[in-house]
């Protein structure tokens, strides 16, 4: 069958062996850094080795960050309208939101920057003090530029105005300005844009620093840029507890320059409610319902879709969707997956009380919180395969064809082998012979590969068959790999699940296997275990719990 497909494909696509390095370089450069190659780059890339070197150089180009951020923004589909800002305003100051210290800035006729209280806007377009009382302040969003303000405003907003929220009269100008390059700045737009992009910012910063791509789901990991730092420094205006900004994080953001347009990784340590991208405000607020969150991660991180034919007659009260015929096919997977999100409220209730732990499950693994979910996903080969598919689609402009199954497997294996280096994955695709072809085909793929299956260990391949495993003989002697930290008496326990007794291993063994599969634990792993004591231990636990 495979051979027949290969023949059909060879017949359908007019190519074979006609490489065009210049064309490939143009495509790689545009997609990866948003420019066209220079004359020098074209002249250099006349053989494959030099072409590889030119592609490698792109990863150090400043445009790579921007294009990668955009890639992740699109892949995660995260974006929020401006009015989401309002729900974060503190209402505990006399229960009145109009206490909010907002100022309006604009350019006067001589292009001098002037700022005034927003509350005075309805009275007139002028400041509340005479012109000769006004004082110059250095605005935080454009170092070196001064604004003229009344003394009361300078006193309240600080000598750089960073303690107030800024509106700019020319909104279009502000929206299109790069922070730190013009006098125009709009706090609301800048902050909501950055909060929306935060999940993409986490993933982008992980790739830029060349950490394993699995870290995008790291508990306690977030990313902050100048605009979010500006927001987080205004505790007096915003209820930061609502977006789960810990004291530790608040302290750290003081070190982020307010004009910094790039996201910086901040790791505040383990937190079972967190899972990197999956618990970022931009993700939780964009996907408001737990089922939606589950559905979106299933599709965007695992490249799988819930598809089923609806019942011919839809029941008026379908009851338990996990059991109702016609609904159960999807909901028996979707709903337990959505349960991982029960620690977070839905929609406007996002900020409500969080239960400590819930019973949730996915892909045969039980769990109680988002950290467990993150570890299950990272332990799935489907996560690696999906990352490959997404990167492939970005650079190749199309999905994998069915005859490219081996290629997808090979890329996935290489991705896992490089310990999930997304940069190396991009390099591998942008230098693959298929990418160098001079021909172009239509983006529509009539015979796409099937969704990546669940239940496979990273790197692919079937799991080895299990022999007889005994807890006392095969597992207990090895548990010190985990129980050093995962014990209820350790001062460093910090909410970690205890893994000391047989019953504890029985309860949490599946999650432990998932996290060992992903190469995250025990500490010191350089990628998913393939051989050696950690691999043997992981396999023993897997077989013992009967996975």
């Amino acid at each position, binding site marked *: 069958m495979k051979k027949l497909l290969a023949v059909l*494909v060879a017949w359908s*696509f007019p190519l*074979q062996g006609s490489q065009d390095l*210049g064309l490939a370089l143009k495509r790689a450069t*545009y997609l990866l850094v*948003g420019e066209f190659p220079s*004359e020098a780059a074209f*002249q250099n890339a006349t053989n494959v080795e030099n072409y590889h070197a030119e592609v490698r150089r792109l990863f150090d180009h400043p445009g790579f960050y921007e294009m990668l951020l*955009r890639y992740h923004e*699109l892949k995660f589909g*995260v*974006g*929020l*309208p401006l009015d989401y800002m309002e729900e974060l305003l503190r209402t505990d100051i006399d229960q009145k939101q109009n206490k909010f210290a907002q100022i309006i800035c604009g350019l006067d006729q001589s292009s001098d920057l002037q700022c005034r209280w927003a509350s005075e806007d309805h009275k007139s377009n002028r400041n509340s003090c005479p012109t000769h009382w006004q004082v110059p302040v250095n605005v935080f969003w454009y170092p070196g530029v001064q604004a003229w303000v009344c003394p009361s405003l300078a006193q309240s907003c600080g000598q750089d105005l960073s303690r107030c929220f800024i509106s700019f009269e020319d909104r279009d100008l*502000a*929206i299109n*300005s*790069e922070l730190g*390059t013009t006098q125009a700045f709009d706090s609301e737009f800048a902050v909501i844009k950055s909060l929306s992009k935060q999940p993409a910012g986490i993933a982008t*910063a992980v790739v830029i620093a060349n*950490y394993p791509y699995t*870290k995008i789901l790291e508990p306690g*990991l977030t990313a902050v840029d100048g605009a979010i730092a500006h927001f987080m420094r205004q505790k007096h205006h915003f209820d930061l507890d609502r977006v789960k900004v810990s*004291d530790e994080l608040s302290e*750290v953001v*003081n*070190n982020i*320059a307010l004009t*910094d347009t790039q996201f*910086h990784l*901040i*790791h*505040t*340590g383990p937190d079972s409610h967190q899972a990197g991208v999956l618990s970022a405000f931009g993700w939780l607020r964009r996907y408001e319902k737990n089922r939606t969150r589950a559905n979106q991660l299933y599709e965007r991180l695992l490249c799988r879709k819930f598809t089923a034919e609806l019942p011919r007659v839809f029941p008026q009260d379908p009851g338990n969707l996990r059991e109702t015929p016609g609904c159960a096919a999807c909901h028996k997977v979707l709903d337990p997956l959505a349960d991982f999100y029960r620690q977070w409220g839905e929609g406007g209730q996002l900020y409500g009380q969080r239960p400590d732990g819930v019973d949730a499950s996915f892909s045969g693994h039980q769990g109680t919180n988002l950290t467990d979910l993150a570890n299950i996903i990272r332990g799935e080969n489907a996560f690696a395969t999906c990352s490959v598919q997404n990167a492939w689609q970005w650079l190749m*402009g199309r999905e994998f064809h069915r*005859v*490219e199954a*081996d*290629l997808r497997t*090979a890329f996935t294996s*290489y991705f896992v082998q*490089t*310990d*999930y280096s*997304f940069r*190396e994955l991009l390099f591998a695709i942008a*230098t693959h*012979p*298929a990418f160098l072809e*001079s*021909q*172009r085909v239509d*983006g529509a793929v009539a015979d796409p590969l099937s969704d990546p299956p669940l239940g496979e260990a990273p790197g692919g391949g079937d799991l080895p068959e299990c022999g007889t495993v005994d807890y006392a003989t095969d597992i207990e002697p090895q548990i*010190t790999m985990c*129980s050093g930290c995962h014990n209820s008496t*350790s001062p460093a326990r910090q909410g970690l699940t205890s893994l000391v007794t047989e019953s504890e291993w029985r309860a949490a063994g599946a999650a432990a296997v998932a996290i060992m599969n992903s190469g*995250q634990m025990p*500490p*010191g792993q*350089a990628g998913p275990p393939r051989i050696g004591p950690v691999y043997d231990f992981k396999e023993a636990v897997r077989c013992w719990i009967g996975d």
Partner: protein
Amino acid sequence: MKWNLATGLAALLTLTTCGPIEDPRTFVDTQAVATEQETSAEVIGYSLGSKARGEDSQALATVRAIMPGIPPATVRPDPDLYARLVLQRFRPNGATLARVLGSLQEYRLLLGGANDDFTRVPQSSFDATSLLAALTISRIVCRSLVNPNQEFDDWQSILPQPPEEVSGNLRFLASRLLGVPAATVADSKIAELQALLASDGTITREHYIVPCTALLIDAEANLL
């Protein structure tokens, strides 16, 4: 808990004495060592552990050996970034650039751009509407590039030679706007562009707006 050096060190000591395997969560007290400008550290706070690996030539050769032989598909540049990326090739960030981009905002959705929450994703192909929007945007962009007036503050024309040096200017525009080496721009292409100059006498920079627009909407520039 106040995050300071003392608690940081305490955390570090606690963690490194925990278990037989070294815990990678090494605490970095940024408060003690960083100022606002010093945010170059890749991770602030606890360590993220080991980096991913670099290139594995041998394994990569195996991947490259698998070649089912299907070429890439044509890719349309992201409509949301299109105008910004063209302009940024020639113009610095600043108020003028922001103002030009602001003036193009109203065409973004027509061009096929995404909406706020990505319920509408960027269009991956052209239709009549997006092509017309691209034409309009290209004219504005081209004016700002080849013959900027006082609207564009102190921007200068990107044409490298005086306007009457038609061939050299057109070759430059074709090379930079199509993203191809100057030497590979065919003479026939230059002749076609020259026909678009449509001048009955003296050639000015204004005359280059039409061929520039034609280049920006050329398939070679828009289908990678």
